[in-house]
């Protein structure tokens, strides 16, 4: 049991079960939360935080969400002697993650580990304090104020199937600064002035005159400017078929105003069609989160294939290509073939499977398959999103076609037998001959 304040040395309290903060005000609590959550050690940033409200001060709903539990003064003594399930569970998971050999101070991993340890759903909190309009109190203090753009981090985790989403709201953001504080306004489509007014059109049935309402108004009476007759009843003598806008600045008359928005934050103005529309979600963990919390974010298959194949960095692979091209052009006899193997939709497999061990096994087999397909003289690299580039030395395109066809069949079989689902592997080929040029070859991988 450790009651901490801003002067506490957190490293010395690493073995405590929880941090207890005596609540004296939002400012101090805020600073302490930053101090804890920006710490690099898992045992500190993920440790349970209790807030002791000794003086019965009203705590804002936001801050209640930032900590794990609030303890009233009168229950404090009792609480200390009781074993709290929540705290025990958090500490159990911290201990579990401590076993991992994978160490990283990457903020995304920190967040994922924190969410994993808490096993919480991140609920968006609407606020004007944050420039993005929404914040996630549980994880707010992992980033400095002002650099809090969690959306990119969430998008990354969602793309990797490490978080799943639940739609909450749809929000408009500024095109320039991503602020949600936008002033939507109807403007004149000709001079863009906001100084516009709208007026109904009046259609007098009897004489077919149509004009603005103001033309008919004479005090409380409505008199037709064409036939001077008084209009009494809407729907009987006249109707209002539509309305018009009139720009007070340029006198332009129009029916459909242009909608523009001005950002309160950066003052830029743009058409409403250009605002960034973003969905706001709740986030919770997926079945793969534990694996990522333990091993990090690199694709499981990346890791496996790295271990089984000798993957070259891109720049070395490119150098090989250059040398191979020069060699072919010099001797004008041989040809080689480039293979573009796209396994990027392999991540989809993650989504539907819970059996981590089984996936791992299959991926090892998949890596082995690719390995058997390569000769020792062939070189392989990986581009973004699991696109593999393979240079088959002294192999004609016809030869490569036969080999890749066999590889495709084997991979399809592997997935069908083990997972009872089909997996379409995407393979394309390019021959390198004496007429090839390097730019054209490099385009092949884009």
């Amino acid at each position: 049991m450790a009651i901490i304040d801003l002067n506490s040395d957190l490293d010395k309290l690493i073995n405590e079960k929880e941090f207890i903060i005596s609540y004296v005000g939002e400012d101090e609590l805020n600073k302490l939360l930053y101090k804890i959550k920006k710490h690099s050690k898992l045992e500190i940033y993920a440790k349970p935080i209790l807030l002791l409200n000794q003086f019965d001060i009203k705590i804002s709903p936001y801050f209640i969400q930032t900590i794990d539990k609030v303890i009233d003064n009168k229950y404090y003594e009792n609480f200390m002697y009781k074993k709290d399930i929540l705290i025990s569970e958090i500490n159990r998971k911290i201990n579990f993650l401590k076993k991992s050999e994978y160490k990283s101070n990457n903020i995304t991993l920190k967040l994922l580990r924190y969410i994993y340890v808490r096993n919480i759903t991140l609920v968006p909190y609407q606020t004007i304090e944050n420039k993005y309009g929404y914040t996630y109190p549980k994880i707010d203090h992992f980033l400095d104020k002002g650099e809090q753009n969690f959306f990119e981090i969430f998008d990354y985790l969602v793309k990797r199937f490490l978080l799943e989403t639940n739609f909450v709201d749809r929000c408009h953001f500024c095109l320039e600064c991503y602020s949600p504080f936008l002033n939507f306004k109807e403007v004149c489509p000709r001079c863009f002035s906001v100084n516009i007014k709208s007026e109904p059109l009046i259609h007098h049935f009897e004489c077919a005159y149509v004009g603005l309402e103001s033309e008919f108004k004479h005090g409380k009476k409505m008199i037709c400017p064409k036939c001077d007759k008084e209009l009494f009843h809407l729907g009987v003598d006249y109707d209002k078929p539509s309305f018009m806008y009139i720009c007070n600045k340029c006198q332009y008359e129009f029916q459909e105003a242009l909608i523009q928005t001005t950002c309160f934050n950066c003052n830029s103005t743009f058409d409403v069609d250009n605002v960034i529309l973003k969905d706001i979600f709740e986030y919770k963990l997926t079945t793969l989160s534990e694996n990522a919390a333990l091993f990090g974010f690199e694709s499981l298959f990346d890791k496996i294939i790295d271990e089984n194949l000798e993957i070259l960095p891109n720049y070395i692979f490119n150098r090989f290509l250059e040398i191979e091209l020069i060699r072919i052009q010099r001797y004008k006899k041989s040809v080689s073939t480039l293979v573009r193997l796209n396994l990027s939709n392999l991540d989809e497999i993650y989504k539907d499977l819970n059996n981590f061990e089984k996936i791992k096994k299959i991926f090892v087999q998949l890596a082995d398959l690719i390995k058997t397909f390569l000769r020792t003289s062939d070189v392989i690299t990986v581009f973004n999103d699991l696109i593999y580039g393979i240079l088959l030395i002294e192999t004609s395109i016809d030869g490569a076609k036969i080999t890749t066809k066999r590889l495709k069949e084997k991979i399809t079989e592997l997935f069908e037998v083990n997972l009872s689902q089909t997996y379409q592997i995407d393979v394309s080929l390019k021959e390198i001959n004496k007429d090839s040029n390097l730019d054209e070859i490099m385009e092949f991988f884009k």
Partner: protein
Amino acid sequence: MFEIFDNYFRFLFAIDEDKFFQMFWHFIIFEASKYIFLVAIVLIYYMFQRKRIKKLEDWARIQLYREYPLISVIVPGKNEGPNIYKLAKSLSEQTYQNYELIIVDDGSNDDTYLICKDLLNRGIIDKFISNPDRGGKASAANTALRFSKGKYIVHLDADSHLRYDAIENILLPFYIDETIGAVGGDVRVNNVEASLATSLQGFEYLKSISIGRFVADKLDVMRLISGAYGVFRMDVLKRVGGWDVGPGLDGDITLKIRKLGFGVVFNIESICYTNAPIKFRTLAKQRFRWDRSIIRFRLRKHIDILFNKNFKIPLKMAIIDNLLYNVLFDIFWILYLIYIMNSFTPYLGYILVTNYILYIFENYIKLGLILLFIGDTLRLKDYISFLVIPLIPIYTGIFLKLVRIYAHLMEFFFRVSYYDKWNPWKVSKVVKEKGI
């Protein structure tokens, strides 16, 4: 067969001048005198005036371009979206370019709103006003008028398009005579080739609008500017309060302008092509609507023009003639039939056949005048309409005549135009109650 022809020719050669008049007085009085001799005289007179008129027009053209006023082209209509692009394109190819194109959507229930909004955003039309609740053609035209900025208002039907020099030409009369309040354009049938009905209308438009109105104009008895294509001075339109509730609002506004003392002329050099009804059934409906207006507007609403000092004697006579011709002509036709049936019973067949031949002959004379006069402006496909000339007597003499008689009787006795769906019921109800 030979005997029939032989007898017929014996009959023809046996009739002397007196007999000819007795047997064919209806044709001689109502057709030949008016539609051949008068027309021919006017056209021949005009041939000698051509150079002088040309000089005046050249001068007017210089004045027009010196001033270069803004023209508002207004197109009111319902469900006309699909026609607007073609219309806008024909306007963009005009020699006169200082215009604004205003489209008023009068309660369309198709994609007109989306089409026009897109055209507006692309800058193809200048103003688009959508009234989701239909108010009728007059209110739509008045809406456009209310938001027009031009010195002159061109009223166009959406399914029309203009010849490249139409707008420039139609404006010239305003710069020749400043008392002119409105100018009618020459409306021709665009889709002459579409069906027999459109071919017949193609020839009918050429003789009754192109030639007929040209002659009426030269005699200063123009009574109608087509709703399909006409141009009005903005100040004059404002003075008459725009269009009144139709149907027949085009004839109505022409007479209202005349009443104020402004001139109304026709310009044969300004050509507008419009799509005519393809089916006889639709055509009958259209004419039923048009023909009723002569009773509703000429006979009821504007009968006071006969006592209006702004109307010159020839125009008054023309209006009387128009009323008599349209209404009494039908009665005379029936009287004529009774007369020949009684007086020349054995020759009835021969007389009817001869009448038919005379009518065809009359139409071929008109064809000659058309070719002589406006032959250079005819499109190749306009010649299709000349193939149906032998059928014109049936078309005008029977089909259109029956529709006209029916329309006149229905309007005279039952005021059927007030129940026409052409106007929304909320409008028809009010104008019927007020007896407008």
